[in-house]
């Protein structure tokens, strides 16, 4: 970081006219679906979670998870959908399912809600070098785009709804 900043200053200080032709890139403006209200407007407060072993026993919200909404949250193509990496046979109607992580099958028979909650909130607490994003975390990240800074990928309710849906996958 520091190093690159120094070279930038050197380049500019050298007054090389050709360096000034470098146009700053316009960051693409992301489209937000109605499911992504937590990614625009005021930043929602972060719910504190308590980790017990490989689980988070307490739900993040009062309102119980809604599997139907959870299905839509997980299928939402423009918000880091699980389908980027996982095949989800329960969503077989959706095209282009990723194959870089194990298929999400039989989760309801293999996991409890508390285990899935930790997996979604921050999979790195289970497998530190995993590629799977932490869906409910804001700290310890590098160079997050300003529009996402301080925001989690999923809202607290998204997490609960997603869990409710995943548990229906027997």
């Amino acid at each position, binding site marked *: 970081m520091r190093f690159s900043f120094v*070279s930038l200053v050197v380049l500019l200080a050298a007054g090389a006219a*050709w360096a000034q*032709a470098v146009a700053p*890139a316009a*960051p693409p403006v992301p489209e937000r679906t109605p499911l992504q209200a937590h990614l625009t407007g005021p930043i929602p407060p972060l719910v504190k979670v308590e980790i017990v072993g490989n689980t988070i026993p307490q739900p993040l919200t009062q309102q119980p998870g809604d599997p139907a909404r959870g299905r839509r949250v997980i299928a939402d193509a423009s918000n880091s959908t699980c389908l*980027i990496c996982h095949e989800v046979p329960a969503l077989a109607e959706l095209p282009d399912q990723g194959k870089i992580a194990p298929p999400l099958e039989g989760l309801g028979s293999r996991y409890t809600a508390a285990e899935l909650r930790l997996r979604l909130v921050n999979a790195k607490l289970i497998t530190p070098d995993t*590629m799977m994003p932490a869906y409910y975390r804001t700290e310890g*990240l*590098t160079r997050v785009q300003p529009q996402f800074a301080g925001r989690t990928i999923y809202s607290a309710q998204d997490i609960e709804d997603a869990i409710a849906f995943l548990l229906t996958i027997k």
Partner: protein
Amino acid sequence: MRARAAFLLACAAVLAATAAHAQGWPIARYSVEGRNSGYFYLGQQTRLLQDDDFQNPGMFAVDAGAAAWRRVDGTQGRSCASCHQNAAETMKGVATRYPAYDAKSGGILNLELVINRERVEKMGAAPLVYESPELLAMTSYISHQSRGLPKAVDITGPAAPFFEQGKDFWSTRRGQIDISCAMCHDDRPGMLLRGDTISQGQTNGHPMYRLIWHTISSTHRMFEWCNTSMRAEPYPLGSPVYLALELYVAWRGRGLPVETPSVRK
């Protein structure tokens, strides 16, 4: 016996497939000691599009570059050709060595920045905006003169710290998604990310015609795209950070043939 028949059949299939795109090179050329060009991961249709110069949409940029090469511009009344004459001879192999350390500016320059330096210092002409059709055309034209020659950038001496900076960048997790370039392009080439086959993220074909963008595109634009797809703040195109990254990525693809203009999905 059966195994042998199957083997012969497979050979015949490979030969037939090679003959089908006679304009291209045998697929083995796109792979050097496990380092694979993006071509390696393309579907047959896209390969054919790249192989045929009459259909390859990137050739428009090469042709535009050829015209600009001879066009007088700036206060000195010169064109590139005034000094460098025939690019097929004088620019052959040049792209294989870039990006490279430049003693005068004390930093890394890629072809785009060299072209602008030449315009300003040798021609008294205005620098071209990064990612403008004009700069992409000239970069494509010069790179095209090295088509088939192996990438061989120098990462020693004063280039070494920049190389290390690029290498660090490559393996650092970034953005809200918190993943690194290496997680896709080192660890998972060949696997499906949604509908896309992940390649090794090589740059030997750049500038490339990217089908989803419908335009010829630079290495830095691709860096920007991969950066924002992890919801990380990208760096400006042509910035020192991306130049260092470009040096590292070019070294990762050492020995791969220059393919410009490549066609990518």
